[in-house]
C-alpha cells in the first residue's frame, strides 16, 4: 500500500517562467487542479493550483478597471509569482494511510511525490486515494453489505466468518467500525452473494444482532474534538 503504486506517474508539470494563463490552459486541458512547478532537472520548486490562478485574476465584480491594462498585467504574471513554494511533499514510500491522514490534517487535495533529491516522481491526489479505497471496500464487485453489532472482545470476528462461511458465501471485504456504545463494534462484511436472507437468518439464530444499514452512517466519530 505504498503511494508509489497508486500515484499518477506521468505528471503534467510546468516551468517557473511560464505565464499563469498558460498554467490555466494546461490545467483546463487535462482536467486537473494541481500543477507541480519544476526546474529543468525536474526538481520541485512549488505547486500552482487552479485557485492560485483564479486569485490572480481580476474579480468579476470589478469591471471598472482598464481591460487592456489588466490583460497586460496578467500576461506578464509568471507561474513563479503566484505558486506556493512551501509545498508539503511526500516520499514514494509513504503508505496510502499516511497520505490519507496527512490530507485530513493539512486539508490539501494533492501531494507531489519526490525523492531524496527533491526530484518529482509523481503526484497523488484525493482522487487516487478515493480509487484505492473504493477498491478496498469492494464497491466494484457484485455484493451486498450486511451490518452486525458485536461485543468488543476477542474471537467475535472468527464466529462471524465461520457462520457466513458455513452458508457457502464469500467475502468482498470486511469493515470494522466503532459504535456508539463503548464496548461494541459494528462489523460490515461485504458479501459476494445475491442470497443474503439465509445468511442474515443464520447470523440472527447464532445470536448476533443485525444493524440496519439504513440507520447507520460511516462517520460516527466526532468530526472535531470540540464536538
Amino acid at each position, binding site marked *: 500500500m505504498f503511494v508509489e503504486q497508486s500515484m499518477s506517474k506521468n505528471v503534467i508539470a510546468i516551468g517557473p517562467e511560464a505565464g499563469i494563463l498558460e498554467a490555466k490552459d494546461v490545467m483546463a486541458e487535462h482536467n486537473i487542479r494541481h500543477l507541480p512547478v519544476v526546474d529543468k532537472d525536474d526538481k520541485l520548486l512549488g505547486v500552482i493550483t487552479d485557485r492560485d490562478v483564479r486569485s490572480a485574476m481580476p474579480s468579476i465584480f470589478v469591471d471598472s478597471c482598464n481591460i487592456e491594462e489588466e490583460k497586460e498585467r496578467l500576461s506578464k504574471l509568471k507561474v513563479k509569482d503566484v505558486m506556493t513554494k512551501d509545498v508539503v511533499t511526500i516520499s514514494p514510500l509513504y503508505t496510502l494511510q499516511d497520505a490519507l491522514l496527512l490530507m485530513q490534517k493539512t486539508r490539501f487535495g494533492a501531494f507531489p511525490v519526490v525523492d531524496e533529491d527533491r526530484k518529482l516522481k509523481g503526484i497523488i491526489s484525493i482522487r487516487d486515494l478515493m480509487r484505492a479505497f473504493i477498491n478496498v471496500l469492494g464497491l466494484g464487485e*457484485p455484493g451486498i*453489505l450486511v451490518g452486525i453489532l458485536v461485543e468488543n472482545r476477542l474471537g467475535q470476528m472468527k464466529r462471524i466468518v465461520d457462520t457466513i462461511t458455513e452458508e457457502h458465501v*464469500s467475502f468482498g471485504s470486511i469493515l470494522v467500525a466503532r459504535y456508539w456504545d463503548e464496548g461494541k463494534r459494528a462489523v460490515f462484511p461485504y458479501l*459476494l452473494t445475491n442470497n443474503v436472507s439465509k445468511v442474515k437468518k443464520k447470523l440472527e439464530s447464532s445470536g448476533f444482532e443485525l444493524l440496519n444499514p439504513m440507520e447507520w452512517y460511516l462517520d460516527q466519530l466526532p468530526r472535531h474534538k470540540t464536538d
Partner: protein
Amino acid sequence: MKKTGFLYDDRYLLHDTGPYHPERPERLKMIRKGLEEAGLLPMLTPIKASRAQQKWIEAVHNIKYILRFEESCLYGLTEMDYPDNQMCGASYEIALLAAGGILDTIKLMMEGKIDNAFCAVRPPGHHAEIDKSMGFCYFNNAAVAAKYLQSEWNIRKVAIIDFDVHHGNGTQHIFERDPSVFYYSIHEHPSFAFPGTGREFEKGTDAGLGYTLNTPVLPGQGDAEYKKLMERDLFPAIDGFSPEVILLSTGFDAHVDDDMSGINLSTEGYSWIIGRMVELADKYSDGRLISILEGGYCLPRLPELGKNHVEMLMGKK
C-alpha cells in the same frame, strides 16, 4: 382480450441448483399452478422451448464464456464464477432452452400469432454479464431477445424495462453504449442490495448516454413510492424513446413477503406495474410486449403473482 402466449417447459425444472437455493424449480411450478387453478391455461397460447442457436447467444456473450459454461457443465462442476451460481450437468442446455424459448415466443408475436407473452423461464438472465455468470444468471435472456429482434425482425428500437428488485447489471452493461436499446431499471438502492450497481447517476455512456435510466428505491418503501418514481422517471423517458417492442425483466422479489429484499410491494402493486406496462405497449409498440421472468422467490406468493401478471397481459382485468 389480447392473445397472450405462455412459454413454459418442464425441462426448465431440470436446472438443479441444489438444496436450499432460492432460485429453485418450485418457483416455476408455483407460477404454473397459479395459472392452472385460475383456469387460465386453456386461454393462453402454449409455447414449448427449443434450443437457441449459438449465434444468438454470441450476439451478446463472449464465445470463450459460452464455451466455459458448456465445459463447466460437461465437467460436472456445480458452480461458476461465484458460489451463488449453483448448477448441474444440464444447466447449459437448460439455459439455451430458456433463451431459445424466448426467441420462439418473439417469433410468434412478430408473425402476429400472439399479441404478447409471459416467459416463465429458468435460469434467469439480467445479472449475466458478457463474460461472467452472476446472481443465479448465465445467459442474459432479455439481451439476447433484444439482439434477435433487431437482427432478425428489423426492429430498431427496443426498450427493456426491469422491475426485478435487483439491478440488472448485465443488461445495463451490455447496452450502455447502445442508443437503440433503452434500459430502465427500478430496484432496491444498491447501497442496501445486490449487486451494488444501478445508481441514479448511471445513465449510459458515449452514444448510449441517456439510454440507460435507473431508479433506486430505499428499503422499506412500497407501492406508493414505486408509482411516484415510475411516473417521474420511466414514463417521460419512454415517451421520448418510442420503442417498437417492449421487453420486461419481471421479478416478483420486490414483494413484501419476499425476503430477498427490503422493498414492500403488495400483490396489487405488482398488478399496477404490469397494467401500466401493457398500456405503454399499446401506446408505443403496437401492444408488442414480452415479459421474461427473472427473480421472485417467495413460493407461497408466486401463484397469485403469476396469475395476476398473466391476467393483466391478457387484458382480462
